[in-house]
């Protein structure tokens, strides 16, 4: 039923745009399994020679026509250079566009579920709690997330408003993830990890793409993208794409199985230009605009009896846009200069008030070799952010308008001690922000390659999390109660106060990792860590005082917590046959927090996942995933809530009837009627994730 329904709407759009697109060339070939992809695959198994260095042998045997088409490893944005994950001195993972396509993932945050050790808890239709290595929360504040180099970490609360972060997932290139501190290159808040979500170059998204999907939770959604090239006497190698996307997600369900009424629909559009004027220059200009209408369950505290709280279901309207320009010039393979600037504006509504923010960021970085053994990267950044928060009784901000400026610089040297065997990477970020002043975030990373296909790495790093505006200047009237039950004239008010005098949270992290590829088909990666957190922020009760006729019981933000976490993430990849690939991971986390405050929760002890990608005859693919997340206690609107352990099973069948058409149907959370993944800080309604089915058809011309 879903497929028919999908096909009919696609045909309509397809027909409509075919006329507009006739006569254009399309180079965006979908990655159909088998041999339809034109780019030569150097790693594919063939007539074997040596067990090791097979890539080298294969390359050496290629003809020149194929060599010029081989795609090399791209620059890893998180390391700011071309880095092979197997040789990275950090716990790094890449979620590929292929993973996302195969598993029928329809939102950006869900793609992070594939990262070993990442705890992804869906709170409701449009909110997710996401963190690695503990401290997960609705506004998880120790994971820095960027999209195409633009930070989406929210300075007001920490965390990310996932409800306003989207793109056409078919145009996503990859999601790069580092677990553990990334502060030396990325600065404050890259404490437990850093994520960069990257979209493809316009050069790689040529032609028309129409994708339509529908299902039980993902209501009818349509994405349309057209990419072309502008050529002429003056400008050559200028590629562009324009896209538009409409989606509608049905509300999830409550714990009793009824509709949670948190529908979310969104319209988004954008454009990206990629210009390659010469061999050595790349210019990117991109812009996005979005409008989101989100129904949200919210509890707002009031002074009126009998409940002193109103539970509302409000439609919030969020909107925003951003423009980014980046220029990279390569002096040589080892030396380059990148300049980037972006502007971002958004308005986000919640709990009867809103945040309107303008951000401007300028970033420059330069890489060069010094002698034959030093690979140096250094850079400077200026970040300006201004926000306005209209007050209501529940939430007020001091001051209601505030401007923050951040200046930072970093330098890092990768020193080759023994070529091909041993490197040491030293570096530090130096930054100045307005709330905590000057911060230094150094790290030392060692990488030892004892043998081919084996690496050992170790790192010691310092990272800080700077307080959010909420922690320095907000007042939340958290709860109202009758001091003498039944007497509404004598009210007590528990209020949470931000504190402008607090310091940054600090982490010293010790990490150790090992990777081995015992055979061409099997690889293992293990990363262990010991983290020491200090000056953790939490609300501390203070002496009560009177405000009018109300007794206020204040709790004030203080640097009065500390924690130690230990953990390990183990992952394995096994290419069982040329057509069947298994990916598995297990992560273990142990947290000792002092004191046992709601702010320091969100530390599930065990997480397991197993994914299977199987290519079947007849251009079919069968893709399955199973996730296990251990029981966890997490901060909720009422203090803490316990989320029971859950197993989630996803399965999907994808069919490529032709090179340009892909039809898929997926079942998510198949073995379970519904389960909660994470509590909300804003509502007492515990939203749960139901079983769902989604079908999608994608057509490329």
């Amino acid at each position, binding site marked *: 039923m879903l497929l028919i329904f999908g096909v009919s709407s696609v045909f309509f759009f397809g027909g409509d745009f075919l006329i507009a697109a006739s006569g254009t060339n399309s180079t965006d070939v979908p990655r159909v*399994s*088998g041999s339809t992809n034109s780019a030569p695959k150097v790693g594919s198994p063939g007539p074997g020679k040596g067990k090791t260095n097979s890539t080298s042998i294969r390359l050496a045997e290629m003809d020149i026509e194929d060599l010029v*088409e081989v795609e090399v490893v791209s620059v890893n944005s998180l390391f700011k250079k071309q880095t092979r994950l197997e040789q990275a001195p950090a716990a790094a993972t890449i979620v590929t566009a292929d993973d996302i396509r195969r598993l029928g993932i329809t939102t950006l945050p869900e793609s992070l579920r594939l990262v070993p050790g990442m705890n992804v808890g869906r709170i409701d239709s449009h909110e997710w709690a996401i963190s690695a290595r503990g401290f997960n929360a609705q506004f998880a504040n120790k994971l820095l997330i960027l999209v195409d180099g633009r930070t989406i970490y929210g300075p007001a609360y920490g965390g990310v408003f996932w409800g306003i972060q989207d793109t056409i997932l078919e145009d996503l290139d990859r999601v790069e993830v580092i677990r553990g501190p990334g502060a030396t290159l990325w600065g404050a808040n890259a404490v437990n990890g850093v994520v960069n979500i990257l979209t493809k170059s316009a050069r790689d998204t040529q032609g028309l793409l129409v994708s339509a999907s529908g299902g039980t939770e993902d209501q009818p959604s349509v994405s349309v993208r057209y990419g072309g090239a502008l050529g002429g006497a003056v400008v050559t190698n200028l590629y562009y794409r324009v896209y538009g996307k409409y989606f509608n997600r049905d509300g999830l369900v409550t714990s009793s199985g009824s509709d949670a009424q948190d529908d979310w629909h969104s319209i988004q559009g954008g454009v990206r230009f990629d210009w390659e004027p010469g061999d050595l220059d790349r210019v990117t200009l991109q812009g996005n605009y979005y409008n989101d209408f989100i129904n949200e369950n919210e509890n707002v505290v009031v002074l009126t009896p009998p409940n002193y709280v109103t539970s509302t279901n409000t439609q919030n309207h969020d909107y925003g846009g951003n423009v980014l320009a980046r220029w990279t010039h390569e002096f040589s393979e080892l030396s380059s200069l990148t300049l980037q600037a972006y502007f971002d504006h958004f308005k986000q509504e919640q709990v009867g008030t809103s945040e309107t923010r303008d951000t401007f960021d300028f970033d420059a970085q330069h890489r060069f070799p010094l002698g034959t053994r030093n690979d140096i990267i250094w850079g400077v950044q200026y970040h300006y952010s201004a926000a306005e928060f209209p007050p209501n009784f529940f939430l007020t901000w001091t001051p209601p308008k505030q401007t923050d400026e951040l200046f930072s610089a970093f330098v890092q040297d990768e020193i080759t001690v023994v070529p091909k065997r041993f490197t040491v990477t030293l570096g530090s970020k130096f930054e100045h922000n307005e709330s905590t002043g000057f911060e230094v975030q150094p790290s030392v990373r060692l990488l030892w390659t004892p043998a081919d296909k084996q690496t050992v790495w170790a790192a010691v790093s310092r990272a800080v999390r700077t307080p959010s505006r909420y922690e320095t200047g907000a007042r939340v009237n958290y709860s109202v109660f009758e001091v003498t039950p039944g007497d509404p004239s004598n009210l007590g008010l528990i209020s949470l106060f931000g504190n402008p005098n607090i310091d940054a949270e600090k982490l010293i992290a010790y990490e150790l990792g090992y990777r081995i590829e015992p055979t061409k088909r099997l690889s293992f990666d293990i990363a262990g860590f010991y983290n020491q957190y200090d000056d953790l922020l939490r609300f501390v009760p203070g002496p009560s005082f009177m405000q009018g006729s109300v007794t206020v019981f204040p709790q004030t933000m203080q640097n009065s917590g500390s924690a130690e976490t230990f953990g390990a993430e183990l992952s394995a990849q096994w290419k069982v046959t040329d057509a069947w690939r298994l990916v598995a991971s297990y992560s273990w986390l142990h947290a000792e927090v002092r004191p046992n405050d709601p702010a320091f929760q969100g530390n599930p002890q065990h997480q397991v996942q197993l994914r299977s990608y199987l290519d079947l005859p007849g251009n079919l693919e069968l893709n399955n995933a199973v996730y296990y997340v251990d029981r966890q206690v997490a901060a909720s609107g009422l203090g803490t809530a316990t989320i029971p352990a859950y197993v989630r099973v996803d399965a999907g069948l994808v069919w490529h009837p032709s090179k340009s058409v892909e039809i898929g149907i997926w079942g998510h959370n198949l073995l379970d009627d*519904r389960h909660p993944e994470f509590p909300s800080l804003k509502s007492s309604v515990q939203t749960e994730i139901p079983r769902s089915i989604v079908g999608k058809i994608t057509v490329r011309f």
Partner: protein
Amino acid sequence: MSQNFIQQHVACGRSGRGMDCLWMSRFLSRVIRSGTAGRLAALLIFAVVLLAGKVPALAQDEAPMDYQVKAAFLVNFPKYVDWPATALPANNSPITVAIFGDDNVANEFEVMISEGKVVDGHPIVLKRITKEEEIGKDCQILFIGASEQHRTSAILERLKGSETLTVGESPDFLDKGGVINLVRQGRKVRLQVNLNAAKEAHLRISSRLLVVADVVKGASN
């Protein structure tokens, strides 16, 4: 269910199914939430996994580093270049590839020729260059890495009149008089050729190579 205008317009109105399709998705939603259908579907899908036997080949991405591709080009060039008889006097004279200023390329090249590479009877051998003075006219191919690009002009001047295929990886390599430049373009390593320089070195470059080069400077014979 949302009463959103666009949803109905896009999903139902335009597909010509009217309220019919809204009803359908409601119905399906109910069936799936009831549990039975989902369990059956899951069982079915797992059954398919177990029964799946014969499977087509799958291409796996294992993207190489750019220095690996460059080394492969160096291994490959002898197939597409003719040296004059003076450079390769005997039928089995070795083709010496000298690599200067890029250990990664040299190490990779060494691996690639470790099991022996022979082109028309000429074995390919590697000569690692660590100092500029070691560069002589006795090599058939010379690769100058980016880290030594400031010496490119001097080296090319010294090699004038020799029958050496000079290969570089820096922006102005052709302008300085080099023969082939390896340039990264996006995620690919592409070729640029200077035919005038090739002519001066008495080298004939195959049209198969010229066809795939992005830039060909100078006139062919």
